[in-house]
């Protein structure tokens, strides 16, 4: 590996120390992420969009090692393109999550990235899948990344079943804002993606437009 002369962050692996969250509602999903990419103590990209499209209506949220996560997302994007051409229609979210899970499981010793897969398909509507370390589990919502530890309490307390689209978006924005203010490796702007039957909407919320809480 690169030797020790020069600052350490030059030879440190680039990680997306991150906060990512995905939540489903009746009719779609909302994904959210922060935008900070760090290498050691240095921020190398303060505006990275960690919500990566796998297909028109399926997105994944990246966390962990930047190189590993980007590579998995690009590989699954390609495999999903081929798969959807073979079946002749839009792929299911479960298929995308399974493809991600297969890579994560097979190379679990070598990779250190966690992807949350979420999207909408005709068969089961909005779905969120967590694929940590090679498992695949469908959940009503999922959080990930280094900033998620700071907001487990908040999401557990605030989540209610049967929220509508606007409530979900507000929930995601609040969670990201709290995590970004407490986690050193999360920050920048917030990216929100809302996927439903009719459209896929991407939104950016700049740092000063995020909701503020006590002590901010």
């Amino acid at each position, binding site marked *: *590996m690169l030797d020790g*002369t*020069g600052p350490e962050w030059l030879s440190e692996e680039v990680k997306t120390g991150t906060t990512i969250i995905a939540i489903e509602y009746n009719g779609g999903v909302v994904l959210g992420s922060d935008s900070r990419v760090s290498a050691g103590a240095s921020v190398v990209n303060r505006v990275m969009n960690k919500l990566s499209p796998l297909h028109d209506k399926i997105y994944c949220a990246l966390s962990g090692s930047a190189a590993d996560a980007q*590579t998995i997302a690009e590989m699954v994007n390609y495999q999903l393109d081929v798969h959807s051409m073979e079946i002749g229609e839009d792929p299911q979210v479960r298929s995308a999550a399974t493809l991600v899970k297969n890579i994560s499981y097979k190379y679990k010793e070598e990779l250190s990235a966690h992807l949350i897969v979420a999207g909408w398909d005709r068969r089961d509507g909005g779905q969120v899948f967590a694929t940590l370390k090679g498992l695949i589990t469908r959940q009503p919502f999922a959080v990930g990344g280094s900033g998620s530890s700071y907001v487990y309490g908040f999401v557990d307390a605030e989540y209610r079943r049967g929220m509508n689209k606007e409530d979900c978006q507000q929930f995601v924005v609040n969670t990201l804002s709290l995590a970004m203010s407490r986690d050193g490796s999360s920050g920048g702007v917030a990216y929100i993606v809302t996927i439903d039957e009719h459209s896929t909407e991407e939104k950016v919320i700049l740092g000063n437009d995020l909701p503020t809480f006590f002590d901010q």
Partner: protein
Amino acid sequence: MATLTVNRAALGGFSFENCKRNALLEGEANKVGCSLPSARKTGTTICGVVFKDGVILGADTRATEGMVVADKNCSKIHYISPNIYCCGAGTAADTEMTTQIISSNLELHSLSTGRLPRVATANRMLKQMLFRYQGYIGAALVLGGVDCNGPHLYSIYPHGSTDKLPYVTMGSGSLAAMAVFEDRYKPDMEEEAAKQLVRDAIAAGIFNDLGSGSNIDLCVITKGKVDYLRPHDEANKKGVRVNEAEALKLTGDYKYKRGTTGYSLLITHRRHDVFISSMEMMSEVTCVL
């Protein structure tokens, strides 16, 4: 009982057998008292910026080997294709060879498609190769160019992650250069303003980072034209001692014309008695170089 060894079929991916051999060799060398030669790094400042008509790449020209400057004027902006150039930081050999390999593959690809290559293609090829080697190829690159979709700028890290941004810096002096960019970057700048910005960013790296120095190279890429300005700015010109004639008086010129008569000086020593009349304490000044 003899142990059975099963010949395992070679798994895909990179074979790290040579790394074990290298570690063994290093151990043997250290036992005798020598050390293996270290890889030459370009402790560097490289940067790129997207302006109105294209992309400008900038680099310093110092290559270091440990704490010694190995090359005062090395070229860090590498050719990838007629419309795409790449700056490299990290291990000099790695950046050199990686860019050459991708340049060759991209030329074959462009002949096969019959089109001018795209920056995104070069980016994919570079990141897939670097990811395959899991960070052992120490090449941190700033890739820029203009293709049919406009100007593009990417930063590529040794482990294989990439970022597509309007301005990027890399290398040991990247923090100094990024400070200049964050202060003065504006979208859609004119060419002269952008050249000045890149020049200032590299200068910040040169003067504030020990691993960067010497001159500033620029590469301005626009649709249909590439200006490779080497050097664009000689920020560190080597000085001349006084003027040449006076220097000769001080040091003496040992070159004589043919036919010069030689003679020797008679030197008499005089003894001087030295008296100490007063003594002053010099204040202590400690200087760290």
